[in-house]
């Protein structure tokens, strides 16, 4: 899948909205900017949701991220600083929703308490101390609104383009095939559990079936004359190359299977275990997430499962695509991690807070009152 340039449309609409809404003495009507902003969010939603089925997780994700982006835009364009502070609080709350979706309940609570609780209240206090009457230069003017908007959105466009390149690379044939083969391993294992002893070749075939299917399909298409909507010849050749690479990776594992023609249940299980590990390794090597080479993590087991821990030893959640259990263990793991692997950084953080407190007191002191007799 080649990266599409569709994502530029919401970016352009968003840039225009921010440019129109930035405060200036003779402001454009706020309605145009707001409309453009809504159009940008809608376009972004159309571009993104167009490719995905709506699940509860993705629905919540879209709601929270739309809130975060919308209130972020309000924070940037708001004339009244008090309202800007409140928009920032809403940005923080939406981000906390995203944290919850990402299985980080402790961070969500900490962010709400520290940002929405402490920092926003302090900001509002300072706003009250430094209140200005009427429109001021600070609130009603912007520095170089056009240049700032262009800089920000060029940065954003570059980031999103790279993300999309990466994403289209990962949605490839190989990841899909590997997932299918892993699924087949799981179903074959269920058959072994019922202690039906079968032929070794049948096991292999069951696991390798998607690979065989894809290969024959690619071959027929390579030999046939391509119709216009079909993938091009070079695409097919690349696919063929991928399949061959997968086949070689798999052959290395299946060669180690026991030589007997008929397998005992234990042998079959052991073989399937080895197959699964090998498939996971292949997946990690070619698809996402890219795992580091084994054993280079300096963190102890207190910081959660190691990246190189064999997949069957991680306490995995079968409902979440085999990802490790995160929400339930999160605060416990985080606490143990902070006080074992990150003990020195925690102490440094505490020291930094102390220094910041002393510094803030020293800076905010009224010098004039000290010199009074």
């Amino acid at each position, binding site marked *: 899948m080649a990266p599409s340039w569709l994502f530029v449309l919401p970016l352009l609409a968003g840039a225009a909205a921010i440019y129109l809404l930035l405060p200036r003495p003779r402001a454009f009507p706020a309605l145009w900017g707001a409309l453009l902003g809504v159009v940008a969010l809608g376009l972004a939603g159309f571009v993104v949701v167009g490719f995905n089925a709506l699940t509860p997780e993705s629905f919540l994700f879209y709601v929270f991220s739309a809130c975060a982006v919308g209130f972020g835009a309000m924070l940037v364009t708001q004339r009244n600083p008090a309202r800007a502070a409140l928009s920032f609080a809403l940005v923080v709350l939406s981000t906390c929703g995203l944290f919850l979706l990402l299985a980080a309940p402790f961070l969500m609570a900490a962010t709400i308490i520290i940002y929405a609780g402490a920092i926003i209240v302090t900001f509002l206090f300072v*706003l009250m101390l430094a209140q200005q009457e009427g429109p001021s230069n600070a609130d009603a003017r912007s520095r170089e609104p056009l240049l700032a908007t262009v800089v*920000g959105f060029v940065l954003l466009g570059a980031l999103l383009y790279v993300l999309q390149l990466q994403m289209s690379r990962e949605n490839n044939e190989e990841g899909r095939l590997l997932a299918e083969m892993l699924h087949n391993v799981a179903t074959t294992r269920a058959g072994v559990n019922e202690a039906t002893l079968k032929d070794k070749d049948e096991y292999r075939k069951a696991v390798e079936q998607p690979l065989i299917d894809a290969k024959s399909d690619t071959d027929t298409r390579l030999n046939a004359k391509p119709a216009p909507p079909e993938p091009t010849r070079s695409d097919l050749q690349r696919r063929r190359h991928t399949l061959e690479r997968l086949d070689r990776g798999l052959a290395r594992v299946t060669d180690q299977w026991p030589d007997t023609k008929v397998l005992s249940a234990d042998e079959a299980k052991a073989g399937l275990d080895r197959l699964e590990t090998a498939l996971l390794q292949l997946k990690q090597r070619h698809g996402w997430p890219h795992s580091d080479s084994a054993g280079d993590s300096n963190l102890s087991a207190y910081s959660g499962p190691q990246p190189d821990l064999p997949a069957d030893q991680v306490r995995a959640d079968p409902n979440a695509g085999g990802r490790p259990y995160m929400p339930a263990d999160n605060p416990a793991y985080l606490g143990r991690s902070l006080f074992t692997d990150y003990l020195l950084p925690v102490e440094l953080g505490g020291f930094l807070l102390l220094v*910041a407190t002393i510094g*803030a007191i020293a800076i905010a002191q009224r010098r004039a009152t000290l010199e009074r007799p």
Partner: protein
Amino acid sequence: MPELPIHHYLAVGAVLFALGAIGFLARRNLIIMFLCAEMMLQGVAVNLVAFARYRGNLEGQAFTLFVITVAACEAAIALALILMLFRAKQSLDVSLWQSLREPHQEPIVDEEPLPPREKEAPSPVLTLSGLEPEHREEKSHV
């Protein structure tokens, strides 16, 4: 259940970061500039937590905790500085400090006049006790 690819979260983080950068560059109110800087940190935090989730370990979350710590320190120092700057110029406008610019740079001159102040509605006044309040004719909408 099809899980959401990590790129979606990274994209949201990128958008928050870019919006914060625009606000920091374009706005002139010191307080809003610092709020925008905090929003950039939020974008980074979303990225880190997403990576933590998809790698299945806690490095990203621990790092986010330190980001929050540094943000709290930054807020304390920044607010103290803002108060000091406000006392010196009686304004939160950052362009009043453009005497700190590079020697070859032109100063920014605000040419367009500010819009006139909007008239605020007067605060409501109660009649003193003991006096009879003004009677207004009641209108019925029925």
